[in-house]
């Protein structure tokens, strides 16, 4: 098992280096040089320009600049934001819990609804129920989620007035963040109504972000279940006289979960891409909205740093999925 993990880790190194190269070259692909970009529309005198180029090291050969960038990045120094003048690394990880909380809730929703829906659709294959579930899954899969978010806002916030439109919690409540997760922090603060407020802010974004993973998981669960239900050992279990709940729940579901777990892991990238849209619509103060804002503010160090950190996170999650997979399925672990 350790060897398996080590091999997977070794495979990550070139990819990670590639990601840093991509993030590094980003700023060099932009028209104009970095100092001109930072100076913005005010312009800059040629002497000051040369001085700044030297000060930031932009006059040195590219490979030296890259090595410096890489060394700094490995030490957690991704440069300063042009807007707030704070460390990009710090900014990212202040906002990251908000995105993480939203993504976790969206994923819980997707798994909690998607797996049962897929199982039922497989067991009742060909029934109206199956068609209804698979039909909705296809609609969910085709959904432009930014529009879906707007529709939910129109209905639940506009017409029914049930949920707020933006933010993480009502301005009435204030407490120091402990974990960064608003749901947990609001409970810890002990303020009356704080948890309900946080929850009502979270519900719609979580539904929006969870829609596509939910559809994908339901479809994947159904097809994995169908495959397993035809296996001999399921027939054996039935022949032994086990009840349908036990056959489906224990014998079939457990074995069909392996591809489903991979699917869930692969959805992490989708979630982070979806977070960009969801957070923008609901003004959710997470890294997705921060990236979009940074792009519009031409805050290039932030875009560069955020790009690298997000890719690194996706990469690590994929590694975890791989390892979990090897853990569940010994055949994967021992192959190659």
């Amino acid at each position, binding site marked *: 098992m350790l060897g398996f993990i080590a091999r997977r880790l070794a495979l990550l190194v070139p990819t990670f280096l590639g990601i840093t190269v991509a993030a590094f070259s980003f700023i060099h692909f932009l028209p104009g040089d970095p100092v001109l970009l930072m100076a913005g529309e005010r312009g800059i005198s040629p002497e000051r320009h040369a001085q700044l180029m030297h000060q930031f090291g932009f006059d040195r050969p590219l490979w030296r600049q890259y090595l410096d960038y890489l060394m700094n990045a490995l030490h957690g120094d991704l440069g300063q934001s042009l807007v707030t003048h704070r460390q990009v690394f710090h900014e990212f990880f202040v906002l990251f819990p908000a995105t993480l909380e939203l993504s976790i809730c969206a994923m819980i929703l997707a798994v909690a609804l998607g797996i049962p829906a897929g199982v039922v659709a497989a067991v009742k294959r060909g029934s109206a129920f199956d068609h209804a579930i698979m039909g909705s899954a296809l*609609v969910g899969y*085709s959904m*432009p989620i930014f*529009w879906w978010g*707007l529709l939910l806002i129109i209905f639940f916030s506009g017409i029914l007035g049930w949920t707020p439109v933006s933010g993480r919690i009502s301005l009435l409540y204030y407490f120091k963040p402990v974990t960064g997760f608003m749901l947990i922090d609001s409970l810890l603060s002990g303020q009356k109504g704080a948890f309900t407020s946080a929850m009502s802010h979270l519900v719609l974004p979580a539904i929006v972000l969870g829609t596509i993973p939910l559809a994908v998981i339901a479809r994947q669960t159904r097809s994995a279940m*169908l*495959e397993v239900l035809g296996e001999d050992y399921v027939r054996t279990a039935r022949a032994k006289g086990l009840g349908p709940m036990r056959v489906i729940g224990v014998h079939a579901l457990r074995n069909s979960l392996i591809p489903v777990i991979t699917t869930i892991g692969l959805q992490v990238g989708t979630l982070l891409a979806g977070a960009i849209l969801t957070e923008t619509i609901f003004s959710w103060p997470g890294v997705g909205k921060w*990236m979009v804002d940074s792009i519009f503010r031409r805050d290039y160090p932030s875009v560069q740093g955020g790009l690298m950190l997000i890719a690194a996170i996706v990469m690590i999650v994929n590694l975890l999925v791989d390892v979990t997979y090897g853990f569940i399925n010994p055949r994967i672990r021992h192959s190659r």
Partner: protein
Amino acid sequence: MSEVAAKTKTYDKRRGGRLALLEEFWHYFSENRGAVMGLAFFVFICLVAIFANVIAPHGPIDQYRDALLKPPAWQQGGEWRFLLGTDAVGRDLLSRLIFGSRFSLFVGCVVVSVALVVGILLGLIAGFSGPTVDTLIMRIMDIILAFPSLLLALVLVAILGPSLTNAMVAIAVVQQPHYVRLTRAAVMGELGKDYVTAARVVGVGRLRLMFSTVLPNCMAPLIVQAALSFSNAILDAAALGFLGMGAQPPTPEWGTMLAESREFILRAWWVVTFPGLAILLTVLAINLMGDGLRDALDPKLRRS
């Protein structure tokens, strides 16, 4: 004389073979009712896009100052000349939607063709060359795939400057790794087969081997992927338009229309509902078709 006859005969046979293949394809495709419905809707959207000038009651950027934010005709205050209502500057929503279909289909076609051609080329090169080139290409694809697609597209557009063309380029760049991977995997699977060895023994050149011997046998998964990425391209282009990084106003692109109407969502439901519905229905139709294509083309991928 008999030689010519024989030739025509084989030719006919081949044609018959192709027709039979098409028939078989249609047989499996039409078994899936959803796929046929999707195809019908897709053809409908294509016709709407082609004949937009004829069908649309108004021009896409004509403004009617006397009719700002008119509701759809069937609602109180609506007018029949603006069937689906008007937007905040008095443009007919239906006409804008009709012209918008052109952009979405155009984006889909361009992105899929570019990604398909580049992806197949790189995939073939990776599959046919030695381990060094292969590893190099595949590592680069891994790196592109490590970034969430929409984020990478967004950043690429930020570099290139926001416009519909740049959005298409960015989406094509983000999508082509999937084609590279599929092509390479399919090529690897075919290379060991007898017919490839036979072709090599006969002395078929490298290019001919790549494109006319092996490639046609790798097409099934690529066609299925093309349908999938057609719909993804439309979604991503709309998302970029929505974020202000795609087509720029006053272009009647569906995502851009949604972005323009965001501030009116609580006052005028129609300016938000219809463009999104257009995106959803088009994408849904293409995905339905994609499922049907998969069932018909690739028995191995068939979703029981």
